């Protein structure tokens, strides 16, 4: 049987049904729909393109087709929705589940999108779903964080839309490029669209820059990524698990499809990898630590997309797959601790190793996997990225200067490898040891600790399944390798286990561990948060408006009054009380009116040009 409709539809319909179904029926549905989607993804034929019956405003939409990395991303998104729903089973939040299905479904929609417009529509639906997930935690903190979250994503979406519109206007095509492997896995991939070279990764047009910026906002790249550690920890225990998976990894997918080989991404990825570690070291809230380690891990993937060889793209895809599993596992473990103890700060936690053994072991397995310890999924996937980075002569651009060949990259290309290896060690430091240590150990458990704090069965089951997957993919990665975008005949696709590689990785990690315990005094938790770029819009902008710009405007009041008379005219026009001149919020109605007039005049000018 072949599935000849977009698999995302199943989840989107599911989201609606979950929202309106009577009684407790929605719980069962939240498991059934992701499972059906998983089947549909598997049965989706290699070659077909699902198109609407007719052209849409003259555009040839492709609602679903298999692009290179579609299958692994779509499978892990559906699997994640399934495990997340299982984890959320006992936490009666219907709205959250419906929103999570919308969120996961549209993420799957993005991976199947065969053109830029479909991709954008699902991209925006994702923002809607994820915002509702944040909001459904309830409470003032979640409301405000969700507000900031949706603002950032709407701005990001508008920037992406502007870029796509410019691109379509310049090229006249909404087609996605096709990726083909070079001669070998270690050669750069080639991207082409309708026989022409795909030029977006060269960043030669404003359209390319806008599209890249729009995607990087979603990927959590500093300085645009502070929405991530701001919003994710404010969601509910299960909400954070959903949130961790889709937005950033969909961005990685879109970067692979549109920007493979874009050099800027190498350095953006390196920045993310280090930045995530530095902030995770400073944070106190356990879910903020894990949120920053998402930034760190996505940094590896973004860097791999920038490297753009077949091995690197395979690595980014495999790492995204493994990352979603172990990151969800870590957040499930943290979520269980929060759910059972109500505590979220490392300063309040610790000494739980006797009370929640299953949660602890699952957390430790997730922590080892994120640190790419041999025998876990991180080792068999992330190593591809560092290996790809270790041969810069295959991917870094060179140019001729005075008869000599020099690197044409922004920094010396070897920097990427050194940063990635340092970041691999740093992951063990901030997530691999720090998370389990401060949450479960740190201080001795009470004498004769008889507390039974392991969470209810469904949460335990979700954790155990993902913990098993972390190990399974580490010991037997072949099924994952088999669905990666680039395949070579003969022999395994990638061999992670060799004597030197295993020993070197263990050396790197365990000496990082030594550094952690030697510096434990310095790492002592404090009741602090660390300011990130969101400070600019949470603190700086309101204060600057109140204390600088507003007074300046008011100081200029006599000038406007006397010379132009504009405020008075405006006040008469819109019924403002003249005796009380002040800058008041406009309200939506007036704003829409002004915007309509501006846009209408643009239209008029365009017609008579």
């Amino acid at each position, binding site marked *: 049987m072949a599935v000849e409709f977009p698999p995302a539809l199943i989840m989107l319909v599911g989201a609606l049904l979950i929202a309106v179904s009577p009684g407790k029926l929605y719980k069962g549905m939240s498991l059934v729909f992701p499972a059906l989607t998983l089947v549909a993804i598997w049965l989706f034929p290699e070659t077909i393109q699902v198109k609407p019956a007719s052209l849409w405003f003259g555009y040839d939409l492709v609602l679903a087709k298999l692009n290179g990395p579609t299958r692994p991303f779509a499978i892990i998104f559906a699997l994640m929705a399934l495990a997340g729903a299982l984890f959320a089973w006992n936490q009666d939040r219907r709205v959250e589940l419906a929103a999570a299905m919308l969120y996961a479904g549209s993420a799957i929609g993005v991976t199947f999108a065969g053109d830029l417009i479909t991709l954008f529509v699902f991209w925006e639906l994702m923002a809607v779903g994820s915002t509702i997930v944040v909001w459904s935690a309830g409470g003032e903190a979640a409301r405000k964080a969700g507000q900031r979250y949706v603002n950032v994503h709407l701005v990001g979406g508008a920037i992406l839309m502007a870029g796509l519109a410019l691109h379509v206007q310049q090229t006249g095509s909404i087609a996605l490029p096709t990726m083909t492997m070079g001669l070998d896995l270690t050669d750069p991939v080639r991207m082409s669209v309708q026989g022409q070279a795909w030029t977006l990764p060269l960043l030669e047009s404003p359209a390319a820059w806008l599209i890249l910026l729009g995607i990087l906002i979603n990927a959590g790249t500093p300085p645009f990524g502070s929405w991530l550690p701001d919003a994710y920890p404010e969601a509910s225990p299960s909400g954070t698990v959903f949130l961790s998976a889709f937005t950033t990894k969909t961005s990685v997918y879109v970067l692979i499809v549109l920007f493979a080989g874009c050099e800027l991404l190498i350095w953006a990825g390196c920045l993310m990898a280090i930045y995530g570690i530095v902030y995770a070291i400073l944070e106190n809230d356990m879910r903020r630590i894990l949120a920053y380690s998402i930034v760190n891990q996505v940094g590896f993937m973004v860097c791999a997309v920038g490297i753009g060889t077949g091995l690197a793209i395979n690595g980014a895809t495999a790492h995204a797959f493994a990352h979603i599993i172990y990151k969800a596992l870590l957040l499930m473990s943290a979520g269980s601790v929060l759910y059972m103890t109500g505590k979220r700060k490392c*300063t*309040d936690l610790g000494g739980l190793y006797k009370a929640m053994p299953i949660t602890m072991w699952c957390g430790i397995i997730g922590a080892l996997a994120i640190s790419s310890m041999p025998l876990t999924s991180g080792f068999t996937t992330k190593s591809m990225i560092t290996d790809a980075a270790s041969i810069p002569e295959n991917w870094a651009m060179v140019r001729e200067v005075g008869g000599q060949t020099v690197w044409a990259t922004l920094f010396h290309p070897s920097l990427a490898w050194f940063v990635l290896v340092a970041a691999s060690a*740093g992951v063990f*430091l901030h997530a691999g040891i720090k998370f389990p240590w401060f949450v479960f150990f740190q201080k*001795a458990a009470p004498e004769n600790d008889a507390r039974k704090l392991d969470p209810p069965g469904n949460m335990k089951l979700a954790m155990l399944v993902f913990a098993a997957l972390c190990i399974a993919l580490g010991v037997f990665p072949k099924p994952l390798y088999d669905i990666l975008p680039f395949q070579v005949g003969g022999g395994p696709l990638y061999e992670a286990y060799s004597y*030197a590689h295993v020993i070197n990785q263990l050396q790197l990690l365990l000496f990082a561990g030594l550094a952690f315990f030697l510096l434990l005094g*310095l790492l002592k938790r404090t009741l602090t948060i660390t*300011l990130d770029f969101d400070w600019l819009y949470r603190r700086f902008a309101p204060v600057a408006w109140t204390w600088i710009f507003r007074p300046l405007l008011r100081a200029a009041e006599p000038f406007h009054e006397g010379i132009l008379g504009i405020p008075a005219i405006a006040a008469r026009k819109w019924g403002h009380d003249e005796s009380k001149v002040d800058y008041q919020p406009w309200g939506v109605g007036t704003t829409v009116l002004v915007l309509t007039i501006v846009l209408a005049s643009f239209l008029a000018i365009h017609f008579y040009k």
Partner: protein
Amino acid sequence: MSLADPQSIKRLWRGFYLLLALLILLDPKLLELVHVLEHDPHHAANFVVDGLPEFYALYGFVTCIAMVVGSKLILGKILMRADTYYDYDPLAPTRDSKGRPLRGKPDASKPERKEAH
């Protein structure tokens, strides 16, 4: 064995040091140097220093120390704030209508912060 017992903690440390020593001895480049191991072309040095014995152990240790010290002692000093930083609005009035300072009075609209132990 209990984790609260200093004796078992000491034993854990000893085991950890033993493991580290073992890893230092098993370093592939070291073994190549003393001809225990054949040179593996898949793990040839790409950047000179990664071909030196014990590179990974040293690099992991040094970069981690640098990252902790750099973030805690440099960036942290500049960017760390009390975790109630965003709970209070810097633009909220500090004096009531009669000019009496509001600061120090419990704010009824905000929940009391739980003190950590």
